């Protein structure tokens, strides 16, 4: 079994979905989450608040500094994510198709590094 990150991308400045659409997306995502749990693929997941709520922490030579805002100054930011346990990429991709449909946005699939063996 491998673990995959399914990241939902938000484009900053893109028109916000209406309340109605948001409610629809929440309900759809809930259904997919239940499916994921029932299938044993669920590890973790959730939606994130907008990037203006982010803080970047850096520690260099024992000195810690903090900066307001997200790390990457790009228009595309992660809006939420799932971590799934899957047999292979095909399984992760077919979940990603369901997730993308449910949250009504593109989903990036990235494999985790294998856990180091002791």
């Amino acid at each position, binding site marked *: 079994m*491998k673990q995959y990150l399914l990241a939902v991308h938000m484009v900053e400045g893109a028109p916000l979905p209406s309340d109605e659409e948001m409610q629809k997306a929440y309900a759809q995502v809930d259904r997919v989450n239940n499916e994921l749990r029932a299938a044993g693929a669920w590890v973790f997941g959730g939606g994130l608040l907008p990037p203006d709520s982010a803080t970047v922490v850096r520690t260099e030579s024992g000195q810690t500094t903090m900066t307001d805002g997200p790390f990457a100054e790009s228009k595309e930011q992660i809006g939420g994510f799932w971590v799934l346990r899957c047999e*292979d*990429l*095909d399984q*992760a*991709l077919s979940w990603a198709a369901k997730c993308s449909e449910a949250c009504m946005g593109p989903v990036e*699939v990235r*494999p985790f590094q*294998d856990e180091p*063996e002791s």
Partner: protein
Amino acid sequence: MDIDGVYRAEYGRCVATLVRLLGDINLAEEAVQDAFAVALEKWEELPPNPGAWIVTTARNRAVDRLRRESTREARHAQALLLHQPAEPEEVGPVKDDQLRLVFTCCHPALAPDSRTALTLRLLGGLEVPEIARAYLVPEATIAQRIVRAKKKIRDAGIPYRVPAAEELPDRLPPVLTVLYLMFNEGYAATRGPLIRTDLCAEAIRLARELAALMPDEPEALGLLALLLLTEARRPARLGPAGELVRLSDQDRSLWNRTLIAEGHDLVRRCLRRNRPGPYQIQAAINAVHTDGAATDWSQVLALYDQLLSLAPSPIVRLNRAVAVAEVHGPAVALAALEGVELPGYHLLPATRADLLVRLGRAHEAAAAYDQAIALAGTETEQAFLRTRRAELEPRPR
């Protein structure tokens, strides 16, 4: 057949089987290469079943190698080998292994350019320089594409399996493209001997399996028909001295009637489904070429028009121009080639040269032949073009 011949014929099949046994492409390639190195030392004459010999030897070499190594991949592969059901002493290549590996190599999560390069390398057994020439791109680019694709297959966990029925419609087109390119490389090799029957046979074999796997997918049938109808004409393509013979000069009695009948039958099955696609149309064009005593060029041109509207590309425009010349004459055809760009492809200047000859513009024709000769990658094609250039009268300069 010598050991080179065995390598060409068996490399892809052996790698595909070793991928199943070891679960890793790099390990599989190393094992097969090891086995060929052993063969080079040990074979005084060919064993009765060279492919089985290579698979067995590769498997044993892999076991030895894995015992010495302690990487994660090695342990994983060892575990896989231990879980294999006991196999008979002489394990031959398994045909399903290749189909599985084709779908892995053509997975939509891989970049399109990488898919073909990887399939030609792993299943066609082509070396990087040969693939680079087929694509007209630098060798380093091809090498990098192959390395990246193999890395993604391993890192992202792209599985080795034939997709389920409901996934097939999405997963098929990239496989068709790759098989078409594999056949093409065999039929009009980019270097060395012009025709590599092993690659053609391999592409046809895989196309047959695909068509059997997906009898309701007309493009799969179309591709098979196209390959069969092209292959059928191969015996007449080279003359007694190994020289290239043009379609119009070919001895039609040499064409393979069995393959033509099978191809025509497939084209008719496609027509009944009435879901035309690029491969079906190209198959239909080849059905016209192989029907009766001479080609009906107006039918061919109509099919090229349909193909151009469905899948426009410079190659289609080039081939269509040949049909235009037969129907409307060389001047119209030359005009139709205006703006067609295929950098590095010798058949564009060669076609232009033929049209210029027919228009009596010998000087320009000679220059175009020179261009084509410089770009042609095989001796056979260069010789053919030189002969045509020499026929120009009066000789320029």
